[in-house]
C-alpha cells in the first residue's frame, strides 16, 4: 500500500457549502412519521394472499421500491432516501402492529429515537396508520406460533416466572422487551445482518439475477437434487424467485432516481447543477445493476445496497456498512491515477454518503430505556485489517473516512478500526486525534488478530477469515459465515441477587431460583460463589430450551430472505437456502450467542462481602441483607462502607480475582451447553450498549453499594463509574488479567474515559497509542475512549461521588477535579468547552 500523505488528508474540506447546507437542513428538519411505506406493504400483502412467504415479502418490497416516493434534495450528490421527509421515521406495521397501535391510540409519538424527542404525525396519516396497525393485529398469521410452542413444551408457568409481563409477540418475531428480569431477548434480528457485500457491489445485481435464473433453469432441467424433504426443492425455487424479485426491485428503484434526476435537470436553471443532475442520472442508470465504473458509482451503489435492507424491513435494528475502505479503494485508486477525481472530490462524496446514512431512522415504539441500543441504529463502519500475510490494509480511503467523521461531527456511523501490530503508526496518531476532536468514543478499536482467530477456530480458512467486520455493539460479523443464530442474554446481577436471597425474588415475591442455601450461614465467599454458579446453571438450562424452541419455530415463519440471498449469492443461490437456514459458506459459525452482564457488579459485591463480613468482620451478613432490603434507607453509613471497599478495575488482586473467577465460571457454564442446532459452543456476548439500564430495573440493592433498580455496570470490563481510581493502565491490567477472557466472548467491550488533557500533545497521543497496543497484546477485543465533555464535568460538580477518579494533572502535580474549589472547577469546564 503506498504511503498516505496524512497532511494532505488533514487539509481536505469535507464540509463544503453543499454539505453544510444539507447537514443544516437535516438538523432543522422536524422528525416525521412516514406511513406510505407500511400502507404499500399492506396493499401488496393483500394482493399476494396464498403465495409463499418469501415471495410475498419480496413482492411487498418490490411494490415499495416501484411506488414509494423518490426524492433528490437540492444539491445532493449521493441519493437514496428511506422516506419522502428529510427526517422521516420509516415503519412497518407488519413488524410490530400492537406497539404501533398503542402509539396511535394514545396519540403519543414522543418516544425517543436516536436523538429525536418527539416525532410529528399528520392527522390523516395517523388515521391511516391506525387502520393499518389494526389490520395487522388481526391478520398476523404466525403471531402465536412461538408462544404456543414454548408453553406446550415448558408450561404456562415459564412465562410467569421468567418474564414480568410475559412475552410480547409481535409480527414475525418475538419481542420480550418490558421489565426484563432474568432473561433478555434481543432476538428480533430477523436472522442476522443483511448488509451490502463487496461482491454484490463489484459485480452488480444483474449478474446476481442471471445467476439465480440460471440456477432455476439448471434445476428444472437436471432436477433440484435438494437434500432433505421434497418440499425443500420448492423452497429453493421460491427463494430464488424472491431473490430475483428483490434485485429487480432495487434496480428499478435506482432507475426511478435516474428518471427524477433527468426531470429535474430539464428545469434546472443553474448549468453546473444541471450537469450534476445528468451525472446522477447516468450513475443511477448504471448501479447497482452493473459493476461501478468509477468512485462516484461505487459510493452510490453502496448507498443503494445499504438502504435496501432498511426499506425491505424497516424495523431491523442494525445494518452494518462494512469494510468501506476495502470496498471503495480500488475505485478510488483508479480514478485518482487517471486524474478523474481529487482527494477533495472523494472526501465530499464520502461526506455525502455519511449524511445519507445518518438520515435513516425508524419509528421507535418502545421507550428509550427499554431499547437494547438507544441512540444508535448501528450502521457500523470498519476500517483497516490485515490480508492473509498480515499486511496492513489501511489505505487512503481509510484516512479520508476518518477525516469525514471528524468534520461532519455526526453521532453516526460509528467507526471501528481493526488494530494489529503492523498498523500504520501515523494512521493511529491520526485516529486518536480524530477521537479527541470528536469526543464521543469514535473511532473505537478492535483486536484484528482475535477477530480473525475466532473464525479460524471454527474452521474458516484464512483467506475468508480475515474478511470480518464490526457489527452491532460490539461484535464481529463475517457475512459468508452467518453466525447470529439467536441472541439471548442472562442477567447475572439478578441471578446474584437471587443467590443472596436463597432463590427468592423480593421484587415479585416469588421463588424464581433454586434454593441454594442461606447465605448468612455460609462460612466463606467461595460458598456464595458456588451457590451462584448453581443458580446460573439452572437458568442456563431453561434458557437453552427456550431458545431452542423459539428459534426453530421463529425461523420457519421468518420470510425475509430474498435480499439476503442476493447479497450472499455465491453461496445461498447454489445452496437454495438463506444464510440462516444453513446456506452460508460456513454454516458452522451459526452458533447462538448468549449475553451476560453485571459481572463487574458481582465482583465488587463479593469484594465487599469478603472485606466487611469475613475479613474485618465489621458487618454481619444478615445486617447487610437487611440494608439491601431497605434499599440502604437508614443504613447510609453501611452503604458508604460498602462503596469504599476495594473495587474491580484498580489492578488489585482481591476484587480482580473475583472478577476473573466469575467471568470464567460463567463462560464454562454457558459453553457447557452446545448450540442445539450446530453443536458448537455458543458465543458469549457482552454488548456495549445500554442493556445495563434495562437489566438494572429488576435488580434490587446490592452489596457493592448500588441502589435498587439503578443500572448495572455497562460494557464488559469497565469499572463501576468513578471507582477506577488507579488510572488507565490499572484498569487495562484488571480487564486483561486473564489473557484468555476475551477469546471466548464477543462484544468484550472496554470503555475508558479521558480528560482532554491526556491527549493535548502529540507525545501524549503516542502514549495513548501505546496503551492500545498493550491492551491488545494482553488479549483485549474492543477499546474506546470517551473524552470528558464540559457537561460531564458539570455533572461531576453535582455528583462528586460518581466522579471520584477524575484527575487534574499537570507536571509534578495531581489532584482530583471534585476537590478543586468551585471557581477553579468552573475554569476547567470553561476551557473544556472552548477546546471543543
Amino acid at each position, binding site marked *: 500500500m503506498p504511503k498516505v500523505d496524512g497532511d494532505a488528508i488533514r487539509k481536505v474540506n469535507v464540509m463544503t457549502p453543499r454539505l453544510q447546507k444539507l447537514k443544516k437542513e437535516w438538523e432543522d428538519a422536524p422528525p416525521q412519521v412516514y406511513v406510505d411505506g407500511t400502507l404499500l406493504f399492506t396493499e401488496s400483502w393483500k394482493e399476494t394472499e396464498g403465495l409463499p412467504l418469501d415471495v410475498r415479502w419480496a413482492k411487498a418490497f418490490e411494490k415499495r421500491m416501484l411506488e414509494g416516493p423518490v426524492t433528490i434534495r437540492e444539491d445532493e450528490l449521493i441519493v437514496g432516501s428511506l422516506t419522502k421527509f428529510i427526517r422521516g421515521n420509516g415503519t412497518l406495521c407488519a413488524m410490530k402492529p400492537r406497539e404501533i397501535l398503542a402509539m396511535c391510540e394514545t396519540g403519543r409519538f414522543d418516544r425517543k429515537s436516536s436523538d429525536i424527542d418527539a416525532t410529528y404525525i399528520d392527522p390523516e396519516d395517523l388515521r391511516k396508520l391506525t387502520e393499518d396497525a389494526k389490520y395487522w393485529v388481526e391478520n398476523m398469521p404466525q403471531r402465536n406460533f412461538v408462544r404456543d410452542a414454548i408453553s406446550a413444551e415448558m408450561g404456562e408457568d415459564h412465562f410467569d416466572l421468567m418474564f414480568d409481563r410475559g412475552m410480547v409477540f409481535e409480527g414475525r418475531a418475538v419481542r420480550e422487551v418490558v421489565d426484563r428480569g432474568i432473561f433478555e431477548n434481543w432476538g428480533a434480528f430477523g436472522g442476522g445482518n443483511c448488509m451490502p457485500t463487496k461482491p454484490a457491489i463489484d459485480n452488480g445485481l444483474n449478474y446476481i439475477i442471471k445467476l439465480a435464473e440460471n440456477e432455476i433453469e439448471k434445476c428444472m432441467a437436471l432436477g433440484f437434487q435438494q437434500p432433505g424433504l421434497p418440499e425443500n426443492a420448492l423452497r429453493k425455487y421460491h427463494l430464488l424467485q424472491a431473490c430475483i424479485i428483490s434485485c429487480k426491485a432495487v434496480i428499478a428503484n435506482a432507475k426511478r432516481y435516474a428518471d427524477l434526476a433527468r426531470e429535474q435537470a430539464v428545469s434546472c436553471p443553474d448549468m453546473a447543477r444541471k450537469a450534476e443532475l445528468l451525472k446522477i442520472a447516468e450513475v443511477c442508470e448504471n448501479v447497482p445493476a452493473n459493476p461501478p465504473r468509477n468512485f462516484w458509482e461505487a459510493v452510490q451503489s453502496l448507498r443503494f445496497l445499504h438502504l435496501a435492507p432498511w426499506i425491505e424491513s424497516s424495523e431491523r435494528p442494525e445494518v452494518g456498512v462494512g469494510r468501506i475502505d476495502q470496498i471503495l479503494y480500488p475505485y478510488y485508486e483508479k480514478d485518482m491515477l487517471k486524474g478523474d477525481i481529487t482527494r477533495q472530490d472523494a472526501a465530499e462524496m464520502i461526506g455525502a454518503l455519511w449524511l445519507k446514512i445518518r438520515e435513516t431512522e425508524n419509528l421507535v415504539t418502545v421507550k428509550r430505556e427499554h431499547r437494547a441500543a438507544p441512540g444508535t441504529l448501528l450502521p457500523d463502519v470498519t476500517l483497516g485489517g490485515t490480508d492473509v500475510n498480515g499486511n496492513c490494509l489501511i489505505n487512503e480511503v481509510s484516512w479520508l473516512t476518518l477525516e469525514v467523521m471528524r468534520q461532519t461531527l455526526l453521532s453516526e456511523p460509528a467507526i471501528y478500526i481493526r488494530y494489529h501490530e503492523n498498523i500504520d503508526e501515523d494512521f493511529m496518531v491520526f485516529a486518536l486525534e480524530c477521537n479527541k476532536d470528536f469526543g464521543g468514543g469514535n473511532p473505537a478499536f478492535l483486536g484484528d488478530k482475535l477477530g480473525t482467530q475466532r473464525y479460524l477456530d471454527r474452521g474458516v480458512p484464512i483467506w475468508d477469515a480475515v474478511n470480518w467486520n464490526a457489527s452491532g455493539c460490539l461484535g464481529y460479523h463475517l457475512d459468508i459465515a452467518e453466525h447470529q443464530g439467536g441472541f439471548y442474554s442472562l442477567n447475572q446481577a439478578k441471578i446474584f441477587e437471587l443467590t443472596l436471597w436463597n432463590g427468592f425474588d423480593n421484587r415479585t415475591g416469588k421463588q424464581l431460583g433454586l434454593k441454594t442455601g442461606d447465605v448468612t450461614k455460609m462460612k466463606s465467599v467461595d460458598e456464595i460463589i458456588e451457590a451462584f454458579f448453581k443458580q446460573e446453571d439452572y437458568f442456563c438450562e431453561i434458557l437453552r430450551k427456550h431458545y431452542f424452541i423459539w428459534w426453530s419455530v421463529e425461523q420457519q415463519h421468518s420470510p425475509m430472505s430474498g435480499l439476503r440471498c442476493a447479497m450472499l449469492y455465491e453461496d445461498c443461490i447454489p445452496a437454495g437456502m438463506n444464510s440462516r437456514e444453513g446456506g452460508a459458506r460456513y454454516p458452522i459459525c451459526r452458533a447462538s450467542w448468549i449475553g451476560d452482564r453485571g459481572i463487574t457488579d458481582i465482583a465488587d459485591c463479593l469484594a465487599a462481602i469478603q472485606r466487611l463480613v469475613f475479613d474485618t468482620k465489621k458487618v454481619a451478613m444478615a445486617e447487610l441483607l437487611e440494608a439491601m432490603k431497605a434499599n440502604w434507607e437508614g443504613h*447510609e*453509613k*453501611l452503604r*458508604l*462502607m460498602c*462503596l*469504599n471497599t476495594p473495587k474491580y478495575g484498580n*489492578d488489585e488482586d482481591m476484587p480482580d480475582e473475583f472478577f476473573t473467577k466469575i467471568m470464567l465460571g460463567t463462560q464454562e457454564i454457558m459453553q457447557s451447553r452446545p448450540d442445539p442446532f450446530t453443536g458448537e459452543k455458543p458465543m458469549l456476548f457482552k454488548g456495549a450498549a445500554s442493556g445495563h439500564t434495562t437489566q438494572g430495573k429488576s435488580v434490587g440493592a446490592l452489596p457493592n453499594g448500588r441502589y435498587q433498580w439503578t443500572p448495572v455496570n455497562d460494557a464488559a470490563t469497565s469499572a463501576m463509574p468513578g471507582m477506577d481510581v*488507579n*488510572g*488507565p*493502565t*490499572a484498569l487495562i*491490567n484488571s480487564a486483561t488479567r486473564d489473557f484468555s477472557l476475551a477469546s471466548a466472548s464477543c462484544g468484550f467491550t472496554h470503555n475508558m474515559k479521558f480528560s482532554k*488533557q*491526556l491527549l*493535548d*500533545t502529540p*507525545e*501524549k497521543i*503516542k*502514549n495513548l497509542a*501505546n*496503551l492500545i*497496543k*498493550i491492551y491488545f*497484546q*494482553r488479549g483485549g477485543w474492543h477499546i474506546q475512549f470517551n473524552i470528558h465533555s464540559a457537561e460531564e464535568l458539570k455533572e461531576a460538580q453535582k455528583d*462528586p*461521588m460518581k466522579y*471520584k477518579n477524575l484527575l*487534574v*494533572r*499537570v*507536571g*509534578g*502535580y*495531581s*489532584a*482530583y477535579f*471534585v*476537590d*478543586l*474549589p468551585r471557581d*477553579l472547577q468552573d475554569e476547567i469546564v470553561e476551557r473544556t468547552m472552548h477546546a471543543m
Partner: protein
Amino acid sequence: MTEPKGIVFNIQRYTLDDGPGTRCTVFLKGCPLRCTWCSNPESQHPWPEVTHRDTFCEKCLSCMEVCELKAISVDESGIYIDRELCTDCGACVEVCPSTALQFQGEAMSVDEVFRVIKKDIHYYRNSGGGVTVSGGEALMQPEFVEALFAMCHEAGIGTCLDTSGYGNTLGLEKILQHTDLVYYDVKHLDPAVHAKYTGQSNALILHNLELVVNSGTPVVIRIPFIPGINDSDDDVAAIAGKMSEIARTAQIHLLPYHRYGMGKYKTLDRDYEMGDTERPSDESLNRAQNIFESYGFDCEIRK
C-alpha cells in the same frame, strides 16, 4: 542493612507530564522548601497527615465522636481540624465511612513501591517511559530513592528524578548513579528573593546543579513561572545567563503558575498565600521563552 522505608503520599500511574513516555510517578512526602506557590502542600511535612475532602463528608459525625482530643469539628461548611490539637493519630480516618478523611503519607518499603511500579512495566518499555520520583523533595529520603532506582534499573525500567535540588549532595551523587534523567527546578537567582519565597537560599541548589550537569546525566531545567516573583525580563535573563554558564546543554521547561493546589490547603486547614494571582499570560510566557532561546536554549512552555 535494614531496608529503607519511604514516606509516600501518592503513586500515580500513567503519568505523561513527568518525563518521556508513559510513566509512574512516586510522590515522596517531606520538603525543606516552603514555596508560596506550592501546589502540593500535603507533600511538605515529612510525617503522615490527616486531610479532609469536604465534598464527600456525609456529616455522620463519627470522626467527632472518636477524636479523644476534640480536635475535629464538623458543620455545614465542612470539616475543620484544629492542627494545634491534632496529633495525626488517624482514629478519625479509620471510622470515616465516606473516605472524606484520609491519611496523606504512608511508610512504604522499596519492595512495596516497586510492586506497584512493576505492574505497568510493559507500558514503560513500549513508550520509552519509566519511573519518576517527585515530591515533596526526593532528596530528603536519599537512601530510599537510591534503592528504588537501583531496583528499577535492574528490571530495565528508566528513572527520572524530579527535584528542587535542595538536599544532601552526597545522597544526590549516589542517586545519580541510577538516574537516567533529572528534572531540576530553578526558581530564582537572587539568594535573598529565593529565601523570601521558598524559605531557603539558592546556593546549595546551584551547587548541586553543577554536580548533576558534570555527572553527565541528561537534565531538564524546570522553571515555575510565577507572576510577580520571577516573571520579569531581568529575572528570566538572570536565570538564562546562569544556566548558559553551568547547564549549557540542558533543555528548559517553563511551568506556568496554576492555582490547582488551592483546594488542598483547605483540606489541611491552611491558608493559601498566593491570593488571586492569575495564570501568567501567554504573552509573558512567550517573552520568557524568547529570552531563553536568545541564549541558545531549547525552551518549551509546558501545559
